[in-house]
């Protein structure tokens, strides 16, 4: 209901300012809705102060009357978590004033997604790796949880699909987990141990031992093990004698040794230098010579203090099913 200024003249107070001779400014009271909204924020603040941490004083602050409860392990007199009759840590209910960390513990323990996941974790807890992999439901669970864990912790090196990276330089190469070749073995226990403790891969440098022609002959022999087209058989035969040094780790026939992580040299899988991607045979030869000359140092970090044993178990199932036999 707008009224023309003419009608309101004399009824509403003006500020007293006059522009251009006849423009005046009304001094209306604040709108009722705005005023109540303002009072509302004051009431909200007072309620907030009562419920939640708010006012600082001295070296502490008012904690509010609102509380959060969560489960916390019972600490024994020796300062370590006590264990209950079932071997699980004994838990007690702890109640803290309302704060984001207490809410976080609550979320970790009793949010719907945490509860749903716990149900499945309990289901696979007493199953063997083989049982988890054999049951389609638990395998799906291992796949979905493993996929997330793999993406966060493994994919940066081994690729999102576990395909690894094969570069011309060993520093840029990370083993393929999706093929049939397992450098350290394909058993679940081996995979768990690799994830938990990491891997210190080390092949010594043999540059001081083999130089020039001797080095080339040895590289020829190594390439002949996997029947690379273009091998100079004569040179390879000459290099065979030198291979005795390599046989200590790679085996007499170059078939590798998973116990110490020495790769199989007779198959077509290459983990640290991209022999299959080399332009020609001479380049292949150079790559192998480089590895013999400088050796290899490869570290996989340990994830034992980053992931829980349960997570590592499921991740092992996931990793195992990426690869072949």
């Amino acid at each position, binding site marked *: 209901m707008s009224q023309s200024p003419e009608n309101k003249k004399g009824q509403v107070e003006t500020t007293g300012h006059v522009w251009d001779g006849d423009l005046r400014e009304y001094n209306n009271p604040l709108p009722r809705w705005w005023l109540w909204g303002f009072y509302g924020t004051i009431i909200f603040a007072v309620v907030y102060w009562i419920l939640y*941490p708010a006012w*600082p004083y*001295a*070296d*502490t*602050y008012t904690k509010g009357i609102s509380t959060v409860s*969560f489960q*916390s*392990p019972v*600490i024994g007199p020796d300062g370590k*978590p006590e264990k209950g009759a079932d071997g699980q840590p004994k838990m007690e209910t*702890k109640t*803290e004033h309302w*704060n*984001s*960390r*207490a*809410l*976080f*513990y609550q*979320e*970790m323990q009793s*949010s719907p*997604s*945490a509860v749903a996941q716990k149900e499945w974790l309990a289901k696979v807890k007493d199953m063997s790796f083989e049982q988890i992999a054999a049951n389609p439901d638990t395998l799906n669970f291992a796949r979905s949880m493993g996929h*997330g864990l793999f993406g*966060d*912790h493994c*994919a*940066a*090196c081994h690729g*999102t699909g576990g395909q690894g*990276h094969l*570069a011309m330089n060993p*520093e*840029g190469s*990370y083993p393929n987990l999706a093929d049939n070749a397992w450098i350290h073995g394909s058993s679940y226990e081996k995979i768990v141990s690799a994830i938990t403790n990491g891997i210190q891969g080390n092949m010594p440098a043999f540059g001081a031992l083999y130089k020039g022609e001797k080095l080339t002959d040895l590289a020829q022999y190594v390439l002949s093990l996997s029947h690379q087209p273009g091998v100079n058989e004569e040179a390879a035969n000459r290099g065979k004698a030198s291979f005795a040094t390599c046989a200590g780790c790679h085996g007499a026939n170059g078939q590798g040794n998973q116990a110490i992580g020495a790769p199989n040299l007779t198959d077509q899988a290459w983990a640290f230098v991209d022999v299959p991607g080399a332009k020609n045979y001479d380049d292949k030869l150079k790559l192998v010579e480089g590895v013999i000359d400088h050796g290899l*140092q*490869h*570290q*996989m*970090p*340990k994830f034992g*203090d*980053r992931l829980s044993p349960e997570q590592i178990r499921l991740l092992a199932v996931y990793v195992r099913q990426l690869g072949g036999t």
Partner: protein
Amino acid sequence: MKHESIEINSALLIILTLVVISIGGLVEIVPLFHIKGTVEKVEGVHPYTPLEQLGRDVYVREGCYLCHSQQIRPFRDEQLRYGHYSLAAESKYDHPFQWGSKRTGPDLARVGGKYSNEWMTQHLIHPQSLVPESIMPSYPWLMQPLKYQDIEARMKALRDVGVPYSLTKAEYEANVKKFGKDMADQFVIANGIKSVKAEAAAENWDGNPKEITEMDALVAYLQVLGTMVDFSKYNQGYFSTFR
């Protein structure tokens, strides 16, 4: 004072506005310096070694914080992806802290030990060679020699704002008690250059042992992030008493 006299006097209006706004800031910030629970009591947090500190300066220079935060918040999804939430105590020697406010890339608060030195180096030189889907830029120039001649001045400046690098014998003794002898030796300002050289030689950070590069420093810094506190020592719920 009438409202009108404030409205028509712009200088007075500005002064009173500043007073009102600063009350908000003072009430929120000043008590944190006096409240005992602001910084959690934990063992293990120590100042950065000279090489790590130089790496941190490279991190700041390259603007890593524009895309990477260093603060894990107490939420389930963050715990599952990044690990234990960050403590205030973990950045108490950071000047300025690198909490950041934007995650174009992942949080780096606990990146230490997650990847090998080789990976870090290769990834910084050319991220897409390892993570094809990454949009991170390449930093190949980090392989240039590190300028570490001014490390002692840098340490002195940090000491002025409260980082316990030691100038005197008494400060050194205090550091030995607090951080152990090995660490305390590295925090002696006069040993700055020596410490940088020793630390760069002690580990193969960037695969180039011939030269101390910026990559050495940056990788050393990244590898220590989030690794100082041993969380297995602390009861669940302990840290919630500090909030």
